[in-house]
């Protein structure tokens, strides 16, 4: 049991990257439109986030420096500020979406409009971020979020034509009803979501919160190697069940309320209840992850005291930022904006934030001044360099694709 709790940070981090509200709907949409023909992107994304989280976690464990410290130290105040603004664009928009996502999950269970739940959810979230211990937060939401495994069980129970599914996986093409531009747009969106920068902000800062030292590098790696592939597998399971149920029916997923339907068909009410619990925990966990990441990044950029391991009054500006973001998020959501639509715009900010986040991690993970003997090995460097190039290509392609496809339509 203790072993499970030891990897809760990795699981919670991965949930924010792979099955938060935006990803749940996007994965279901991709499954219903493209089948599993984009599954390879998730695999590529998982490897990428594993490579860079391992580096950022190792830097945190050896040097005690979290990721936004590195950004500022290697890029300086000017480009560092550009990255701060872009990363905040991604993280804060996602934070808003998650609060709306928790409200949506509750709406499905109660059929009371999500807008009415927003203030309640936000208040509960803020109390958790203010008062609940970091370890409790990651254990509860990380592990309860695993309820989403019900999608994998549903897939097995649906007993689809596995050969046909595998044919989709290996088709590497958009299929008859979609264009290549649309295919590329969703490939970029899935890749961007897998490597979304708040994962490394949260993971490395979480390592500092947990007082990782050199002896904890093994635990850190266990978190990385278990957490992210698990997150990727969950997102693939969501895409697979929608590919089985919705693709032949000609249904394109556009809202969270459609996502539990395949589980209902396969497993009935019990399955739906577990899926809704999973939605709630995953979106609430992702809200914690993004909310804290907003505070972590700003505090680390400006050198403020931060973290949940000190009393709030010892990290006053950090907690003020979290309080303020929660209030602004509520204000935005009360305009009745669609929370899922909010995440689509974050792709734009990823274009700038991704390269400017992963370059400094790669550089510092090679610097013996920080790392001593624990600098990157050859494999980490080869993969890191290759992924940096891929990230640059994706960053350049993201905005034109978004415009060409009108956001994937």
């Amino acid at each position: 049991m203790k072993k499970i709790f030891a990897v809760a940070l990795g699981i919670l981090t991965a949930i924010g990257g792979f099955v938060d509200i935006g990803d749940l709907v996007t994965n279901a949409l991709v499954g219903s439109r493209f089948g599993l023909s984009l599954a390879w992107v998730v695999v590529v994304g998982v490897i990428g986030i594993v490579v860079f989280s391992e580096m950022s976690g190792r830097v945190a464990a050896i040097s005690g420096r979290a990721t936004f410290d590195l950004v500022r130290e290697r890029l300086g105040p000017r480009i560092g500020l550009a990255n701060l603004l872009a990363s905040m664009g991604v993280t804060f928009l996602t934070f808003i979406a998650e609060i709306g996502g928790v409200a949506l999950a509750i709406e499905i269970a109660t059929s009371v409009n999500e807008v009415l739940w927003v203030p309640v959810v936000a208040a509960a979230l803020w109390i958790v971020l203010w008062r609940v211990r970091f370890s409790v937060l990651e254990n509860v939401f990380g592990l309860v979020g695993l309820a989403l495994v019900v999608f994998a069980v549903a897939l097995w129970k649906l007993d689809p034509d596995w050969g046909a599914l595998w044919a989709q996986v290996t088709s590497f093409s958009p299929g008859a009803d979609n264009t290549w531009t649309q295919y590329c747009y969703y490939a970029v969106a899935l890749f961007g979501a897998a490597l979304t920068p708040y994962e490394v902000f949260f993971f490395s800062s979480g390592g500092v919160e947990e007082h990782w030292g050199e002896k904890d590098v093994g635990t850190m790696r266990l978190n990385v190697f278990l957490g992210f592939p698990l997150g990727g597998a969950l997102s693939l399971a969501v895409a697979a069940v929608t590919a089985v149920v919705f693709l032949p029916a000609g249904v394109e997923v556009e809202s969270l309320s459609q996502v539990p339907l395949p589980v209902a068909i396969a497993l009935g009410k019990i399955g739906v209840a577990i899926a809704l619990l999973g939605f709630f925990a995953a979106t609430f966990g992702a809200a914690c992850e993004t909310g804290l990441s907003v505070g972590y990044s700003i505090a680390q950029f400006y050198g403020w005291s931060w973290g949940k391991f000190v009393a709030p009054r010892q990290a006053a500006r950090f907690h003020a930022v979290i309080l303020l973001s929660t209030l602004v998020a509520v204000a935005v959501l009360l305009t009745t904006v669609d929370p899922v639509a909010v995440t689509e715009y974050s792709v734009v900010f990823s274009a700038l934030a991704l390269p400017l986040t992963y370059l400094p991690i790669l550089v510092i993970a090679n610097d013996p001044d920080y790392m001593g003997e624990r600098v990157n090995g050859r494999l980490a460097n080869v993969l890191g360099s290759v992924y940096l190039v891929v990230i640059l290509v994706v960053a350049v392609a993201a905005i034109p694709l978004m415009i060409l496809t009108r956001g994937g339509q």
Partner: protein
Amino acid sequence: MPGRDEPGFRRQYDAELHLLDRQIVDRDGRPVAKVDDIELAVRADGRLAVAALLCGPGALGPRTGGRPGRWTTAIWRRLRTEEDPQPGRIDAALVTGTDNAVHVSASADELRVDGLERWVRHYVVDRIPGAGHAD
């Protein structure tokens, strides 16, 4: 001197690479500020010596440059009550050593370079129940 050995001093510093933008940590290990700029003083022998670490928006703004930098500086001036506000200053003699952070021998409260932190603590955070409760 990698890792978490006792912080000491390098033989040489490349100012931008080894000092600027590094975290300043107080004697209790608590983050205080970043090295936003470094003050040099002309010594009697004419050489430029490190006099102090400068921190806060008043030092960061000019270094950021461009419109974001000007805005940073302007907002900071507005929020200060003095006629000619100066950025936070930590005397170089207080620095006890460097590793991947810059360590100083005073506590954050004695350094008094984080006016906003104290303002937010006093007027916002301390008024919320549970502010003194650590993990």
